[in-house]
């Protein structure tokens, strides 16, 4: 059955409020966030009150039960502002909530979903110093000791971990690698559990106000029911399902930020004078603006189409991967042109073009690099071809 999500009229009303909130509150607060590398607590509280942490969670757990199309539209609108705003909500929604919804027991949902919807921050621990999408190399272990799980290992590049109350941590529950990644299980780890520590946030190229850090697990003892879904060997499947959702979120972020960047380039081109007229009058500048506009439109179309397919429960791996790959690359091209339109000023930190360029760069990397996505797309093409499927 298709996902209907929220009532469309109510959703429209929310988007209208969100657009205003972005314009009147979130954008004016950007400078402060960049200067202090953190989102002020009062803004976080407002974002919680606005209901931004519960977008896709079921209504009975305090969420708004948005479908994918509505979720990505919300992310697109939110991403007109600094990427840190999306980052702080997206792990809750895209990763941890989605894994809980897909794989959690009723008791686990009851315990965590309302807290996550209300804005307790969660982090998602898959990547390690020596492994990412390649689960065979995973080092973190979970073993049963009496009636408790004991976790040991280190997770790397864990977004929001310095602020998290809950970690969804992947660990191997079997020494031998097993088919379909059945050696990996997922655990719900309260971040204040003894033995859990979070490293110093890493310094990054861009994305100010959003933090990633190592999470160290040293003989972390958890009750038996901390195992997601109560069943071993399902962790990687849940993780990968969450990553599929995450891809569309990055595509949406790329479209939203791309629009912001293009709007900035367009405005600058009408204000900056050269040879006695605004540079927007020069055709080579116009070409950069026009290419950006057309590509942004293409990206938005892909995003909407892919989201609609997900909601219709169609097979959409190729479409979601394509949308993420195209939109993130598109956003980077627009950011590059925005710098170019600004000329020398584009290289100065005084102008926004410079940070747009740095902020965008991550979009072609996380939640699957462009190259991993190429492999995903090609693999599925070849598989479909071999199966004789007509697409």
């Amino acid at each position, binding site marked *: 059955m298709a996902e209907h999500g929220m009532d469309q009229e109510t959703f429209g*009303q929310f988007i209208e409020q969100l657009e205003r909130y972005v314009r009147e*509150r979130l954008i004016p607060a950007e400078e402060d966030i960049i200067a202090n590398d953190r989102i002020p607590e009062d803004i976080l509280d407002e974002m919680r*009150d606005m209901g931004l942490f*519960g*977008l896709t969670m079921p209504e009975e757990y305090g969420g708004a039960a948005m479908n994918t199309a509505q979720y990505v539209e919300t992310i697109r609108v939110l991403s007109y502002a600094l990427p840190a705003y999306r980052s702080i909500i997206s792990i809750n929604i895209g990763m941890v909530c989605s894994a809980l919804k897909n794989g959690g027991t009723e008791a686990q949902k009851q315990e965590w979903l309302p807290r996550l919807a209300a804005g307790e921050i969660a982090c998602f621990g898959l990547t390690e110093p020596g492994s990412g999408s390649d689960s065979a190399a995973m080092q973190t272990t979970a073993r049963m000791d009496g009636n408790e799980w004991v976790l040991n290992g280190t997770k790397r590049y864990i977004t929001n971990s310095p602020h998290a109350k809950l970690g969804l941590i992947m660990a191997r529950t079997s020494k031998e690698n097993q088919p379909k990644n059945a050696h990996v299980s997922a655990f719900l780890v309260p971040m204040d559990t003894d033995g859990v520590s979070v490293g110093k946030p890493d310094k990054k190229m861009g994305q100010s106000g959003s933090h990633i850090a190592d999470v160290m697990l040293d003989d972390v003892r958890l009750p038996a029911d901390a195992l997601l879904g109560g069943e071993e060997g399902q962790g990687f499947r849940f993780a990968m399902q969450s990553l599929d959702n995450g891809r569309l979120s990055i595509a949406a972020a790329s479209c939203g930020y791309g629009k912001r960047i293009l709007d900035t380039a367009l405005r600058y081109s009408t204000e900056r004078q050269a040879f006695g007229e605004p540079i927007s009058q020069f055709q080579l500048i116009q070409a950069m603006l026009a290419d950006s506009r057309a590509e942004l439109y293409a990206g938005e179309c892909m995003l909407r189409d892919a989201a609609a397919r997900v909601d219709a429960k169609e097979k959409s791996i190729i479409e979601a991967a394509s949308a993420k790959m195209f939109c993130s690359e598109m956003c980077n091209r627009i950011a590059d042109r925005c710098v170019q339109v600004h000329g020398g000023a584009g290289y100065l930190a005084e102008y926004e073009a410079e940070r747009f360029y740095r902020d965008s760069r991550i979009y072609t990397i996380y939640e699957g690099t462009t190259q991993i996505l190429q492999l995903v797309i090609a693999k599925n093409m070849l598989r479909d071809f071999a199966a004789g499927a007509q697409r």
Partner: protein
Amino acid sequence: MKILVPVKRVIDYNVKPRVKADGSGVDLANVKMSMNPFDEIAVEEAIRLKEAGKAEEIVAVSIGPAKAQETLRTALAMGADRAILVETDEEVEPLAVAKILKAIAAEEEPGLIMLGKQAIDDDANQTGQMLAALMERPQGTFANTVEVDGDSVTVKREVDGGLQTVKLTMPAIVTTDLRLNEPRYASLPNIMKAKKKPLDSKTPADYGVDTAKRLTTTNVSEPPVRQAGEKVADVDALVAKIKALGIA
């Protein structure tokens, strides 16, 4: 105490209005509309009074096309308890609006009627004052602060010379100025809850009010385009220029 908050659906304050080619008014086709910002301040103030335990119920009312329902839903999402839509596709002048509001007030018996000092579309700044006159009740216009105490309300008014404080016996009419408060954003959970709040539909005829226009708009035109300035080389040239223009 009950608070009645009239809200108007107007052209969004971020939209640059365009005048129709025939000069008959502003072109509203496919233009984003939203709640009059001054009315939004009135809604916010009513909610704050309710949150402070000074009021029990907030009733939002709008007079306008069916689409004004959206504006009422926004008021409900912000925190109003129920809404009344008086539906009409005609343009309703401030006097007719005041007459309808008077009739609604007779039914609802609010302690306070709080509304924006003016709507940003026609800038009439009349409805609150006309309503007070028709109801023969006190008015506190251009409110900068509002304090309810027992059966009276103290309003600090923004007047040219500063702030003037007036104390009104309720029921009273208060019109809100820009600096009274900063309206909240309607949150997603509250927008969802607002869907279930009651919204009554009425027509001007239900209140026995004739909304026929008393005024005729003869022409609407865009503000004149500002002329470009001129750069002068030095102070002497500036002085000469000022003298030549005769503006010294």
